[in-house]
């Protein structure tokens, strides 16, 4: 498990005008505004989905767990479909890529929890009075937490197909369909599986947050673990929370053991390397599938069918065109294209401003920005504290291979576990000890995301070259010098990757962490997350849009001004190759 997936890894590679980013940003916010505007007031309360209808009996939990798992699976399917359409489109058409990639980049940075309001209202409007709408909304929210990085990873694979394989595929006349399944999908597979696993980790958090939600006067609760927790909170039932935590643990472990471990091991064969590396032992579930006669007999026809499907001669074989120069034609096309883009940008900006300006004043913007600064400060301090704690721990573990392997799976589990399930415990403690909400709610933001730092630092330390360690031991480099000259530069690229993920996740978590309820008790911190949560509760769509826009701007600015330069520096100077 030493692979590193980074949200800015790809972005760092493409240096391109920020105009496109600006366009993508405006477009997303404008669409949000339009949806909110259209959906406003059209929603009916759905009687069957009231929170009170959730049973708090532990015996109901397995059933709820299944519903939750189904939602996750549906969202994953949607994410894969999205990945297989969006990424090829962006990779194969230069013009589409110009829009689609910045769009993806911004979507990645938008706090997904802020979407909740819009998606729920929009989907409920699509299916008035029906449970289906709410189900779709929940699935969509989970989807938005999973799809972007998967699409990014596949896009990256599509744009870095090794030249010789590309030529071989062309020389042997593979059709576009065959090329996709025989060349491009296999190449993207390791990254895709890894990112799907990471996405799943984020997804559990979202599923808990999205099953039970109040938007204005509408309170809906879909049967699932998330709603169970919400109901337990309302009823101040700590035992219920404990049961839910147990159920969630079981579900995540099952997903990990039955699905992702086998998948990751299986995807290993798609790694593009010509040398056989020592592979760790296959996970038991993969062995079960590959080595038992029954499973093989069951799966073989499926495999054959898939193989047959992948081999279909759909689409055309690649043609080549003479390098001529239809400059004039291109120019005309360019004018039309950029004209359309400019018009789209204008419309989006106008839409955004006019929507917000109808009832919001400049003071509202200033307020949101100020609250954003508070949340920003929290995120920064928390990342710093988490780094001080987890970097030494991660290095210690990473340098001991036998430990690293065991700890890594525990950390992975911790990262997947939805931290919002643990919030009630923190709330009870804060209430009992009369702590300040502004300070003591903050750690909740990083509760679930700090693990990315630890995880990546362990990965970095465990691949630190042995000869360099021996050299530093040989020259007696110890203490402070050992950290600053030897170890920290060595793990820095990994650390940055972890810190980026942790910081992005913390912003998102602030929306549920800055306001926490415990029955009638309500702990409230000052920050942009609380601002968005409050506005959602009140059904004040304009403030939600404003809050989400300001938060996105903060996240994007941090990524561009802090993380990306660090990441580039690390990639340039601190790599072993």
């Amino acid at each position: 498990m030493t692979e590193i997936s980074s949200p800015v890894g790809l972005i760092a590679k493409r240096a391109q005008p920020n105009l496109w980013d600006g366009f993508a940003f405006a477009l997303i916010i404008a669409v949000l505004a339009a949806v909110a505007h259209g959906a406003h007031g059209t929603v009916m309360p759905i009687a069957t989905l009231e929170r009170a209808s959730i049973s708090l009996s532990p015996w109901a939990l397995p059933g709820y767990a299944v519903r939750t798992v189904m939602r996750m699976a549906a969202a994953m399917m949607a994410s894969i479909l999205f990945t297989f359409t969006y990424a090829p489109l962006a990779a194969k058409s230069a013009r589409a890529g110009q829009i689609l990639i910045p769009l993806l980049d911004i979507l990645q940075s938008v706090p997904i929890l802020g979407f909740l309001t819009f998606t729920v209202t929009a989907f409920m409007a699509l299916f008035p009075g029906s449970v289906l709408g709410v189900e779709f909304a929940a699935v969509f929210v989970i989807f938005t937490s999973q799809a972007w990085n998967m699409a990014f990873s596949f896009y990256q694979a599509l744009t870095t197909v090794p030249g010789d394989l590309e030529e071989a595929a062309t020389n042997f006349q593979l059709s576009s369909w065959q090329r996709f399944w025989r060349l491009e999908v296999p190449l993207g597979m390791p990254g895709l599986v890894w990112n799907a696993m990471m996405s799943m980790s984020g997804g559990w958090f979202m599923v808990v947050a999205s099953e039970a939600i109040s938007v204005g006067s509408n309170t809906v609760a879909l049967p699932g673990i998330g709603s169970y927790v919400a109901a337990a909170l309302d009823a101040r039932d700590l035992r219920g929370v404990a049961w839910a935590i147990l159920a969630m643990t079981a579900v995540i472990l099952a997903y990990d053991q039955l699905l992702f471990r086998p998948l990751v091991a299986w995807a290993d064969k798609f790694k593009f390397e010509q040398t056989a590396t020592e592979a760790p032992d296959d996970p038991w579930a993969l062995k079960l599938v590959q080595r038992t006669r029954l499973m093989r007999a069951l799966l073989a026809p499926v495999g054959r069918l898939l193989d047959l499907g992948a081999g279909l001669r759909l689409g055309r074989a690649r043609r080549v065109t003479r390098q001529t120069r239809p400059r004039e034609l291109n120019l005309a096309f360019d004018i039309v294209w950029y004209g359309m883009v400019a018009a789209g940008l204008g419309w989006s900006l106008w839409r955004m401003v006019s929507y917000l300006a109808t009832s919001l004043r400049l003071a509202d913007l200033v307020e949101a920005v100020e609250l954003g600064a508070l949340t920003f400060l929290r995120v920064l301090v928390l990342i710093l504290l988490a780094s001080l704690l987890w970097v030494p721990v991660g290095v210690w573990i990473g340098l001991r291979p036998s430990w690293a392997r065991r700890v890594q799976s525990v950390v992975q589990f911790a990262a997947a576990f939805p931290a919002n399930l643990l919030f009630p415990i923190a709330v009870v403690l804060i209430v009992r000890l009369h702590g300040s909400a502004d300070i003591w709610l903050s750690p909740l933001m990083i509760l679930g995301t700090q693990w990315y730092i630890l995880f990546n630092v362990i990965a970095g330390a465990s691949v630190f070259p042995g000869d360099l360690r021996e050299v530093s031991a040989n020259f007696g480099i110890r203490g402070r010098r050992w950290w600053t000259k030897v170890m920290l530069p060595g793990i820095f690229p990994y650390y940055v990757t972890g810190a980026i993920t942790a910081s992005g996740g913390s912003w998102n978590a602030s929306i549920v962490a800055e306001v926490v309820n415990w029955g009638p008790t309500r702990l409230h911190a000052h920050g942009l997350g609380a601002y968005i949560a409050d506005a959602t509760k009140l059904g004040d769509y304009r403030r939600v849009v404003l809050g989400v826009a300001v938060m996105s701007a903060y996240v994007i600015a941090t990524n561009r001004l802090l993380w990306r330069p660090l990441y580039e520096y690390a990639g340039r100077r601190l790599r072993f190759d």
Partner: protein
Amino acid sequence: MLDPAPEPLLRLRDVTQAYRKGGTSDLLVLDGINLSLRENQIVGLLGRSGSGKSTILRIVSGLIAPSSGDVLFRGGTVTGPVPGVAMVFQTFALFPWLTVMENVELGLEAIGVAAAVRRERALSAIDLIGLDGFETAYPKELSGGMRQRVGLARALVVHPDILLLDEPFSALDVLTAETLRTDLIDLWIEGRLPIKSALMVTHNIEEAVLMCDRVIVLSPNPGRIALEIDIRLPHPRNRLDPGFRKHVGEIYALMTKRQDPHSPTIEGIPGTGIGMVLPDVSTNEMAGLLEALAQPGAPARVELSDIARALQLEVDELFPIAELIQLLRFGEMEAGTIRVTDGGRLFAEADTDHRKRLFAERLEAHVPLIRLIRRVLNERPNHIAPLDRFRSELEDYMSEEYAETTLRTVITWGRYAEILSYDEETERLSLEDFS
């Protein structure tokens, strides 16, 4: 077959390939290539890097289209990948997630051959090329030689009229490469290869003479056909046979010949003045070759082909070093031989500091780019200049890629000679500041 002059299988007519450069002119890679391939021939395309030999192969296979000129295959113009032309890659280009069998079947699946037929043909190709028993193995389990056999089987299974070989043995070790060469030639002379003819790209002169019926020698920058030689020696050929050595010597002489003033300069290095494309040769390599040539008892004039054999160097490795030696007047090349000058002898015997001084003097005297950089740095009050200042100037003369190599080379040489200093973080050149 009784037709006295049958229509060639493949014909290239006035093929030119140019890549657009940012500015005014195009970068010419191939210039006016005319060649034809008849049945029952193995033809070798021999040339150094930059001679466009791989580009010719890609044009023939329809992977890229030429800027002008035609490719005629069986009388029809090639406009894209055609069935009947299959390629073997230098890097094998096997799909790591497919087994040997699946890799071999790939080309058949693409043209829609039924599964049963596919299997049968793949098995017979695997059998022919000596891969029995490896059908279910994945490429990463195989040695390099076995991998290239898979590459060969994959190409042969589609029964191509023309087999294209793109430096097929250059990624293999010496012994493995030789085994594969002889196996392939044996199959060819026994008539067991399901192909009509083969076109092979190589930079290995002996390999070309060993395997080909006709060798086409290309001169670099832009790629032009310099010579065509028919090799009429019977197979199996013996590398020590006088006839074999004669052909090898002939080609060496040609490839090191002083060219006409239009293309590569007297030094054999393409471009003149600032526009000289500097080879990526380290000073250690140059010193190593000079020491070998100047050692006591060595003859004054040495055959390049002998050096290549003795030092196990490929032409593409040896020639750039020899050319740097010639550029700095440490040696002279003539008719496939090299002679060390007095200056070269002095360098070979000098200690490190003395070597650096000698190298610095020669750089200033014979490398115009070094002179330019030193002049610009001296003119500036702080003696610092961004690398981009020179990059853009170089790109007026050469491709971005060549410009990058040339700059890296100049920095390395300048650092060794202690006449230039470079800061990678700021990408700025300065005059050596440690002296």
